[in-house]
């Protein structure tokens, strides 16, 4: 299967750009901002201010490029490694940070932001994007649902059920697999005997496309086509964005046990931010001061959000009893009294 690439590894344009230079600059700034967050995430974890953190470094083009194809009211259903995509679709930094600090308020984006909190278990969430898209069609809207998942998730049975339902009912769902080469320590080669993940779409009766996941223009072009198709009622598409997980699985993982630094060095040469920077520079649309200002603005914005999130008082001890149902059950009220009695 051919792989769509619009920006070559050296940043030269070898196809048709899906955006004008102004939009390319906006998306470049978004990738830079996302990377600032990602670096802070790892640092906050090392400082003990975050729970485990799953870095997405190297996958910025896949996430920002995919979400750039959405309308602000479309649904996004992703995973613990998709903070860049979630932020791009309107999920506030504060909520992303709270989630990683271990606070359930992190799962509550503002009303109007149609982004589900990240799925932590692997694979079960893709069918939710099918149900959401189906509901929108039954309600008569033209919203679509984009679901993000990794190469590992394609081995789960739920991948099959989600792809099958979406195709059978032509739901307006876009499946975007960030094939980052690794599912913790299991390599892509060990995950499936298929030559590509994109080709699996054929078995379900939907289009599958393979794109260079470190090429923002390629990801955006393919996702935009899939989104248009979904919105037009023509059904789902599987997009495989071939990328690489530069970091370990999470801050708890030691990737040195199962892969070599040479692989990482090779993929760093294909860095998605460097690639778009080279393109913008050659078009006279980039300068170092602007990128530094973008980084500094992102850093200040995220630091302010960190301060707000850390200043937020944790839930009261009894908060857990109030979140299970619209109204706590009698059993939960009794347990609340027990919990409070034993704690006092």
């Amino acid at each position, binding site marked *: 299967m051919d792989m769509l690439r619009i920006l070559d590894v050296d940043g030269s344009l070898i196809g048709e750009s899906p955006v004008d230079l102004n939009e390319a600059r906006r998306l470049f700034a978004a990738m830079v901002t996302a990377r600032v967050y990602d670096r802070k995430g790892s640092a906050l974890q090392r400082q003990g201010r975050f729970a485990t953190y799953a870095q997405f470094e190297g996958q910025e083009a896949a996430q920002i490029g995919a979400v750039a194809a959405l309308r602000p009211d479309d649904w996004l259903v992703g995973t613990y490694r998709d903070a860049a995509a979630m932020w791009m679709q309107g999920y506030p930094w504060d909520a992303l940070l709270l989630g990683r600090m271990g606070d359930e308020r992190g799962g509550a984006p503002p009303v109007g932001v149609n982004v589900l909190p990240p799925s932590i278990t692997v694979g079960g969430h893709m*069918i*939710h994007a099918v*149900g959401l898209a*189906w*509901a929108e069609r039954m309600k008569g809207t033209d919203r679509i649902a984009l679901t993000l998942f990794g190469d590992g998730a394609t081995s789960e049975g739920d991948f099959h*059920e989600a792809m099958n339902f979406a195709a059978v009912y032509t739901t307006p769902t876009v499946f975007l697999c960030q094939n980052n080469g690794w599912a913790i320590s299991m390599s892509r080669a060990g995950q499936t005997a298929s030559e590509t993940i994109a080709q699996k779409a054929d078995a379900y009766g939907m289009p599958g496309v393979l794109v260079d996941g470190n090429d923002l223009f390629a990801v955006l072009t393919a996702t935009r086509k899939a989104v248009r198709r979904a919105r037009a009622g023509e059904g789902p598409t599987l997009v495989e964005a071939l990328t690489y997980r530069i970091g370990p699985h999470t801050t708890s993982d030691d990737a040195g046990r199962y892969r070599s630094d040479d692989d990482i060095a090779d993929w760093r040469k294909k860095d998605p931010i460097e690639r778009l920077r080279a393109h913008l520079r050659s078009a006279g649309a980039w300068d170092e001061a602007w990128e530094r200002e973008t980084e500094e603005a992102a850093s200040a914005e995220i630091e302010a959000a960190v301060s707000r999130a850390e200043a937020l008082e944790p839930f009261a001890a009894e908060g857990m009893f109030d979140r299970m149902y*619209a109204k706590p059950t*009698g*059993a939960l009220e*009794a347990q609340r009294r027990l919990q409070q009695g034993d704690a006092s």
Partner: protein
Amino acid sequence: MTEMNMAQALNDALDVALSADDRVVLLGEDIGVTGGVFRVTDGLHERYGPRVIDTPVAESGIVGAAFGMAIGGLRPVAEIQFLGFAYPAFDQIVSHVGRIRNRSNHRFTAPLVIRIPFGGGIGAAEHHSESSEAIFVHTPGIKVVAPATPADAKGLLLAAIIDSDPVVFLEPIRVYRAIKEEVPEGHYTVPIGEAKVVREGSDVTLVSYGAMLRDAGRAADALEADGVSVELIDLRTLSPMDHQTVVGSARKTGRVVAVVEGHRTASLASEIAAVVQEQALYSLLAPVERVTGWDTVVPLRRTEHHYIPNPDRIAAAARRTLAG
């Protein structure tokens, strides 16, 4: 009022819900053209077309899609053909359906109903006779309902469909066509979380639900013939359980027999015994008795009756509480 069996009453409830609210959609295997393996959805596909959806054979997909639909603003009612086929969907139920309200601090909710026929006694194949309701009762964030009569089945299903939280709705297979009673017409609800005192008595309390309620009733008849006054409670909702009604009765009679078809260990009967000893110990005149299925796979047709509690076992347990 019309006389209906439970399958008809449930069909009527779904008809009422579908006609009252465009957000209600049904999905499941063979529920459309065929009307469901137990014919509970008979005729609804003709009346409501695309809102009654035949699905591929994929229980996790059915529940996962219904979950997405519910978050998206619909009121899905999913059907799983038998409780023994629900396990592939259990990950969706325990990992997502019961958690999204907590995970999102109430921002997203999943008001869906998962209808599942349960229990044995019809000599079915393996996997078709399960009473593993305790697994669902042990799962936070969902409600579990199990009606025993046609009128309660209709009212509880309509209550489940308008509930703000997800409900696993267990339908006793053995009762579907076994009893008929007057069922009110149109929309009405039976409150979730409230047990019913089916008959009042003063010597011993039998607590049960689902198909076992009839056998508990037959045991009560036998005991009454011997001059024992029996209070019979139908739990109706397994989670959240109505402790007040059970404990109130235990304090009155001083003797409790919990009757469930599920496996004995960590069963609803175990929970009833725990609640009663916590809240009514000093009223008890005898240990709480559990009459249950065993910790075995439900035997196949030829020996199934050795597993499922029967009126004799229930009455014998009640007599043990009276012997002291």
